């Protein structure tokens, strides 16, 4: 294992000794794949036949007009098979798993999107599949759990710690140290030990490569700003990748502002100054932790952004000021989502809605000659329970209560 995978001071591979050969193998397979042009071709083929890449760019005609200012474009990762950018990463890692001759995949999931995507990929490639998911997230994302199980995956509800994403990651590692011989751990975001941040970014860079070409073709110029929500950072790294060489394009990462500043209230590692540098879950980055280095509870209306750490590459880009970080509050996020649904007929996932909220806040003060691009990382079908609660829909509540009555009666009769 070489001392590689650093982005300035961030990154690395802080892994249990038993996984060292596994990471060596993974890194070799990954590097070999990068050098083998046929691998990327196979990846493009599967993404354009099993999912619908290239995903389109949509212009938000109504909101552009209503808000005034910059013209708003959206990269439609929600149209991917399984409804989010997560598909890009899992299909890539799936191909790699096949190359490594492994027969089983495991994954952590927060919102359930990555879990569904991984279970889907496993069904497609014929792998066994176990998904670790915080018990708290299992409760708030049941529809996704249902589909994972339908795909044949085993979903393990993790009852340790805060019962969210970070705990699911720990449990996945615990599985991996027992089963590394036949198992690949499909990490779901641009975090974790090297080579994950770089590898996940590579697969997700398909977003940015497409988006840059599409914006150029459509408007003959690049967008002035590109917005992406940041959980672990994979969709952001994916779209930003397309624009790193374009100094005129400002990149904006939007984190979960939750209920506002202060420990336990949010999951903004870079936009707020509540996080400090630390090492956990195998890599060094900014974490929301106390002085001792114990991870703190985080909060977000969106399960997928509710995470203590952040991609080490984004920590580096934050420090080098190549990406600007902002945070959007729960309330603004739900409002931005509703605005998008009602005015454009698009249903951004709560995660993605963070990027929309920030873009809507900034667009009015920009020039009509400027374009902005929002990465719509996913759709909100999975969020129906959360959104119905956030907008406090009495009809939905009544529907659930009636359905429950039906089920309870069925049970007593049976």
């Amino acid at each position, binding site marked *: *294992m*070489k*001392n590689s995978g650093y982005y300035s001071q961030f990154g*690395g*591979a*802080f*892994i*249990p*000794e*038993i996984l*060292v*050969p*596994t990471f060596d193998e993974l890194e070799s397979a990954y590097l070999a794949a990068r050098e083998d042009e046929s691998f990327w071709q196979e990846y493009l083929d599967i993404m354009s036949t099993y999912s619908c890449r290239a995903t389109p760019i949509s212009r938000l005609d109504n909101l552009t007009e209503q808000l005034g200012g910059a013209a708003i474009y959206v990269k439609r990762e929600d149209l991917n098979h399984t409804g989010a950018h997560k598909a890009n990463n899992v299909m890539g890692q799936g191909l790699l798993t096949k190359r490594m001759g492994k027969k089983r995949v495991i994954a952590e999931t927060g919102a359930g999107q990555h879990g569904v995507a991984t279970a889907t990929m496993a069904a497609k490639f014929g792998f066994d599949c176990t998904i670790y998911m915080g018990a708290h997230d299992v409760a708030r994302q049941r529809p996704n759990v249902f589909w994972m199980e339908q795909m044949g995956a085993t979903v393990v509800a993790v009852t*340790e*710690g805060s019962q969210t994403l*970070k705990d699911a990651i*720990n449990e996945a*590692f*615990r599985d991996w*140290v*027992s*089963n*590394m011989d036949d198992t690949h751990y499909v990490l779901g975001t641009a975090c974790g030990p090297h080579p994950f941040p770089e590898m996940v970014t590579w697969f997700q860079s398909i977003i940015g490569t497409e988006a840059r070409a599409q914006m150029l073709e459509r408007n003959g110029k690049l967008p002035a700003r590109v917005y992406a929500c940041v959980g672990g950072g994979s969709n952001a790294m994916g779209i930003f990748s397309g624009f790193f060489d374009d100094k005129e394009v400002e990149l904006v990462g939007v984190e979960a502002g939750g209920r506002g500043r202060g420990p336990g209230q949010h999951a903004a590692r870079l936009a707020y100054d509540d996080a*400090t*540098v*630390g*090492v*956990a*879950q*195998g890599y*060094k980055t900014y*974490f929301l*932790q106390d*002085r*001792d*280095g*114990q*991870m703190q509870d985080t909060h977000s209306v969106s399960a997928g952004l509710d995470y203590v750490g952040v991609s080490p590459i984004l920590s580096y880009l934050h420090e080098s000021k190549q990406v600007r970080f902002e945070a959007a509050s729960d309330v603004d996020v739900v409002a931005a989502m509703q605005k998008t649904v009602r005015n454009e007929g698009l249903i951004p996932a709560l995660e993605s809605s963070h990027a929309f909220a920030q873009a809507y806040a900034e667009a009015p003060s920009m020039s009509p000659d400027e374009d902005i691009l929002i990465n719509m990382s996913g759709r909100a079908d999975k969020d129906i329970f959360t959104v119905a609660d956030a907008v406090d829909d009495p009809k939905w509540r009544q529907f659930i209560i009636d359905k429950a009555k039906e089920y309870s009666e069925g049970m007593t009769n049976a």
Partner: protein
Amino acid sequence: MHERVTALELAIKKAREKKEILLMTHIVLGYPNFDDSLRVVEDMVNAGVDLMELQIPFSEPMADGPVILRANAEALKGGATVEKSFEVAERLTREFDIPFLFMTYYNILYCQGINAFVDRCKAIGIQGCIVPDLPPSEGEEYLDAMHAAQLSPVHIFTPNTPESRMRHLSDNSSGMIYCVARKGVTGKDTAFSEDITNYLSLCKSTTELPLAVGFGVKSKEDIDYLRGKVDIAVVGSETIRVMEQDGVGAVKGFIETLVT
């Protein structure tokens, strides 16, 4: 003899003169609380334990299984801090004449400052550290500080570790090598058999340091099996399990069954 002989290594070699196999146990500091931690260590030492691992609790103990994981979480919930862990450790090294090691995850060291952490270890009489998520390649600052302080950075051999890497780990270690008996996390059963014997011979051939074996050691039979093959048997999760099932007072009796 290799160049970096530490106090820990000497202590182990000395103890081995009298015993065919030594017993190292493991506790999580502050679990269930710091008073009980003290009492358990006292019982263990009285029962004949030769070395101890003191785990400073961490919120993300990635390499630990359910028993130690829960102990970490409970200790933190009970208010355990790194400072209190240091204080209790200091009292233990003062009161009991056996080598103590810290076991913890790298973020604990990192957040204290590596040098500050190592200096404090030295100051309070801790002889070595086991940091399961810190491979030597990531741990240059730590290794330098430990070696400079003549403390023992203990690395881990696993059944997956190739011979060449064992040598590399050994080169970066002092005091002893910790061999995990199987894949997986702490606290699950291990079948001590032929496979393990071969693995342990390989371990032995790649290092001059004393060997400790842990992960799944939990009975006199297990220890008997290891006798003659390695220097130290490590009983970890099992003591916590005994404590949880039968109370703090039961630990002494359990340890006595192991050493007689």
